[in-house]
Structures are given as structure tokens and as C-alpha cells.
């Protein structure tokens, strides 16, 4: 390379570096991070919000609820999405760092237990789901299904859904080590679609085909009952989820550090407002009401 060319190359590199630096400084994006169950929903909420408020850019990342909490603790995001409550340890860590999390329930999820459509089973009790995921039940025959090995699909330990299920269904006992730990809801669905012996769990927003409003082809959503005597309900049954008759429903949370400000305040107010809640419903989740909503409005101020 001649001397002149070398000089030109150096100048070009400098210009690129400078331009890159300026771009990074100039754009102040609202960083939202966390739950994979919520990432599609929040992404769409952000897109709709940005259509109306083009000067308030929002970046949404998934990764898992744990990633969101860690992001807030380490200062890499302003809003943390979690599909579970924060753990006491996390709250303690936050307070230690001077972070005062405020929580907004943005949607209700009916956590759905899914199997392959070739599996004739239609319902399970909470205890049975727990026993299956703890690895105590290894054959579908034991819970009234066909003679077939159970093939477990779940999420990784940074997933809020993983923790939620462990606390509420597995009764705080560890998962079977035979569970295949997938990278996200979508991968669990891929696994269950291809595997006749599969069982998986995903947020209700993931199983509904947006166009028809019905569950995806190839999947079967199991009805769940609290115990043997109770009636079994489907997570697709809005009334059952709202009334709490469906036993594994949960709020989906977005958390800020203290009172939300700037873009975060506008975004959250819009989500819990009627327009945002309509999007929540269109995405297959359920809108927030009652006490949770009152709490949301209080926390905005």
C-alpha cells in the first residue's frame, strides 16, 4: 500500500469512528429488557407507541426475566420486564444500590401447558404437572395418557416462567435434570410440534394464531384443574383466567427505577391505558383490571 493510500485509509477510519460515536451520543433510546414471554408483546406495544410518538425511540430486548432484573441492577436498562415477582434477594440488591423499583402490571398471562396434538390427553391437575416436571412421572401412562415416554421441554433458569412454575406448580422443588432447556417460548413450541411425547409450557400469547384467534396447528393446550375434584379450565378461557379459576395465571410486570420519567412515563401510561390494553388483548394476553390497575395508576405518579 502506498503512503498516500495509507493516509486516506486512516482518515476514513477516523471519520467512521467519530460518526459512530456521535450516533451513540445523540440517540437516547429507552432501553427495555427482560422476559422472553413478554418480548413480542412489548415489542408490538413499543412499535404502536412509536408510531404516535416518533421522537421517543424505544429498544426492546428479551433474554428472560432474570436478564431484565440483572439489567436494571447493572444499569443497562430503564425498564425491566418480568413474568414473575421479584425475589426478595433481588429487591435487597436493588435497595443496596439505591434502586427503588416500581412495578406496573401490564397484562395477565394464562401460563399454558402444551403437548403434541397426537397426544390424546386433554387435562392434567396442578399436582400432575408438578410431578411430571420434577421427573417423578416418566411415562404418560401414569397420568392417564398413552404408554409413551415423557419428553420434558422447559426454559432456562433465567426465565421468569421457569421460576414461576417452580414456585407455584413444582412446590419449590427442583426441575428434573432430564428437562431440555430451550432458549425461548418459540423454541419450546418448535420442540413440542416435532415431538409426540413432549410437554412444554409457554405464555398464552405464544400459542394463539394471530389471524384466526385459535391455538396453533399441531399443538394441544391442556386444561388444568387445581385438584382432582375441581373443574379443569383452559388458559384460552378469558372468564376462567380473570376469575382465577384457571390455576396458573399471573400478572406480567414492567419495573422502573423510582417514578417513571420521560419516555418511560409516557410509554407506561399508554400501555396501562385503554389503547395499550387493547393491543395486549390482540396479542392473546388478557387486560389488567381491578386492584392491579389501581396500583398501576398510583405508581405512575
Amino acid at each position, binding site marked *: 500500500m502506498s503512503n498516500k493510500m495509507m493516509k486516506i485509509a486512516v482518515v476514513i477510519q477516523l471519520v467512521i469512528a467519530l460518526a459512530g460515536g456521535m450516533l451513540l451520543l445523540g440517540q437516547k433510546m429507552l432501553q427495555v429488557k427482560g422476559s422472553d414471554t413478554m418480548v413480542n408483546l412489548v415489542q408490538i406495544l413499543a412499535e404502536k407507541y412509536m408510531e404516535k410518538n416518533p421522537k421517543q425511540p424505544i429498544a426492546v430486548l428479551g*433474554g*428472560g426475566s*432474570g*436478564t431484565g*432484573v*440483572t439489567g436494571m*441492577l*447493572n444499569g443497562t436498562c430503564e425498564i425491566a420486564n418480568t413474568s414473575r415477582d421479584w425475589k426478595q434477594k*433481588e429487591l435487597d*440488591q436493588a435497595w443496596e444500590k439505591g434502586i427503588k423499583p416500581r412495578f406496573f402490571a401490564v397484562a395477565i398471562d394464562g401460563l399454558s401447558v402444551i403437548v403434541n396434538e397426537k397426544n390424546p390427553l386433554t387435562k392434567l391437575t396442578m399436582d400432575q404437572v408438578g410431578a411430571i416436571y420434577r421427573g417423578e412421572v416418566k411415562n404418560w401412562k401414569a397420568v392417564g395418557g398413552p404408554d*409413551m*415416554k415423557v*419428553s420434558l421441554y422447559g426454559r*432456562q*433458569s*433465567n426465565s421468569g416462567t421457569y*421460576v414461576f412454575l*417452580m*414456585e407455584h406448580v413444582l412446590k*419449590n*422443588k*427442583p426441575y428434573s*435434570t*432430564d*428437562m*431440555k*432447556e*430451550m*432458549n425461548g417460548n418459540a*423454541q419450546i413450541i*418448535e*420442540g413440542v410440534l*416435532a*415431538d*409426540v*411425547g*413432549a410437554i412444554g409450557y409457554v405464555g398464552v400469547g405464544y400459542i394463539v394464531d394471530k389471524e384466526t384467534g385459535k391455538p396453533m396447528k399441531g399443538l394441544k393446550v391442556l386444561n388444568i384443574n387445581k385438584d382432582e375434584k375441581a373443574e379443569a379450565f383452559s388458559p384460552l378461557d378469558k372468564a376462567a383466567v380473570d376469575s382465577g379459576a384457571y390455576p396458573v395465571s399471573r400478572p406480567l410486570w414492567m419495573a422502573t427505577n423510582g417514578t417513571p420519567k420521560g419516555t418511560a412515563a409516557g410509554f407506561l401510561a399508554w400501555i396501562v391505558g385503554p389503547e395499550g390494553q387493547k393491543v395486549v388483548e390482540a396479542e392473546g394476553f388478557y387486560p389488567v383490571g381491578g386492584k392491579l390497575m389501581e396500583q398501576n395508576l398510583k405508581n405512575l405518579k
Partner: protein
Amino acid sequence: MKRQRLRQLKERAIKAFFLANGLLSIFVLLGIFALLLYTAVPAFRDIKIGEFLTTKLWDPTSPLKPVYGILSQIMSTFLVTVGALVIAIPVGIGVAAYLSDVAHWRVREIVKPVVEILAGIPSVVVGFLGIVLVGPFLAKISGQSHGLNALNGSILLAIMSLPTIISISEDSLSAVPQAYSEASLALAGSRWQTLIRVKIPAALSGIIAAVMLGMGRAIGETMTVLMATGNARSFPTGFFQSVRTMTSNIAIELGEVPYYTTHYYALFAIGLVLFIMTFIVNLIADVVLRKYQEREL
């Protein structure tokens, strides 16, 4: 006079520049090792090294009591890597021998660049192939309900390490002096005998280097195994089981883990173990290579 001095100065500056470049890579390596050591060692304040290496269960987020044991992960990494090599070595050397000795030069001019392009396929894409193509195929032939297992990972890693093995083996086979094969043919050796008994032994140091590089690629690969092997934490008992390798465990958990906790340090400790393992592999390769070269002389 002045001009000459200027020239000398320039010469020296250039020398210093290249020396600095050479040293940089050493410093980077040492820096990484130091950082790894610095973040891994605190893990052993809470975990006993012996338990860490010999316990099968890894469950740092257990609601009962966190358990940190990486024996299953070491075994999984071993299983997947060995499987990959068993597939890739014969195929790789076979293709290299074909390209250097059998194929028409025109075929070689086309096939070799194509093989090298194979190396450029992103690992996520290979992993995806594992899920939609290799997985269902393995499920069918093994009679299991799914194909997310160690064998799937081995097949994919074999595919990923093939370009390295083929390309470097072919180079070293082609570098064997013409006189060797001419001598062999002159002594009435067939082409097969010439290839197997003369050329491959002569090129062995290059071929071993190629295999080691391929192995390095396989042992450190993360995304592909993460996607295709199912990531179950159980101790592997066979190729048709879902396994979680050391790399995928680090990738899965590092994004989530709260900083400066035992779990966080333990993940770096896994990285350190992996680093030491690859270091030993490279060291052995180096020693073997040197021995072989000495004998040659």
C-alpha cells in the same frame, strides 16, 4: 550520510512496530488468562474444587440448596467433541487426499474454495439445521420422540470442523515434495500405496495440526450445540441423550446471573477449566508434533 541515518531510523521503527504486534498477542493471551483466573478463583471460597469437578449435578438456582458440579458438563463436552472428531477425521482426510491426489485440477479449483466457504456459515444457521433437519432424522432412525441429543451436536460440529481439516490437510499433502511420490511410483508402488504409505505419513504433521485446529473449533463452539443438543443437565450415558456442554452452560447462564455472586464466579471457573483443557490438548499436540518431526530428521 543523513539520508542513510534516516533510513536506519525508519528500519528500526518498522522493526519495533512488528515486535509490538507480536507482543500484543502474547499480552492479550496473558490478560485473558489473568482475568479468567481473577474472576474464577473467588468461586472456590464457597465451593470445594474437588466437589466442583466431581459432582454430577449443576443446580445453582435450586430452591433447596445450590449445587455446583460440572462433571456432567465435562463429560458432555467430551462426548460431543469425540463424536465430532470420529466423523470429521476420516471424512476430512479422505476429501483432502481426493483433492490433492485424485481429483482433476479443475475439480480441485472449484471444490476447495467451496469447502472453505463452508467455514463461513454462521453457527446459528448450522444450529437451526440441527433443529429442523438433523434432529427429526435422528429421531426417526433412533425411534425416539426427538433428536435433540449429543449425536446431533457431534454431526453439526463435524460439519463445522471439516473445512479446517480439509483445507489444511490438503495444503500439507500438496506440499509433500514431488520426488517422494515419484520415488514411490518408480519402485512399483501403486497410487494407493503411494498415498497411504508415503504421502500421508510425510504430511502427518500438517494433518495432525489440522485435526487439532478442527478439534479446537469443536470444543469451543457454543451456539450450535446450544441449539441442537437439548441442554438437559443430566449426566450423559449415551449419544442419544440430551446433553449440556460447558460452553452452552456458560452462554445460557452468564446473561442472567447477578454479578459478583458465587454463581457468577462459578461460571468463570467453568471457563477456566475449559481453557486449561484446550491448553492441554494444544500442548499434547505440540509435543507429539515435535517428536514426530525430530524422528523425521
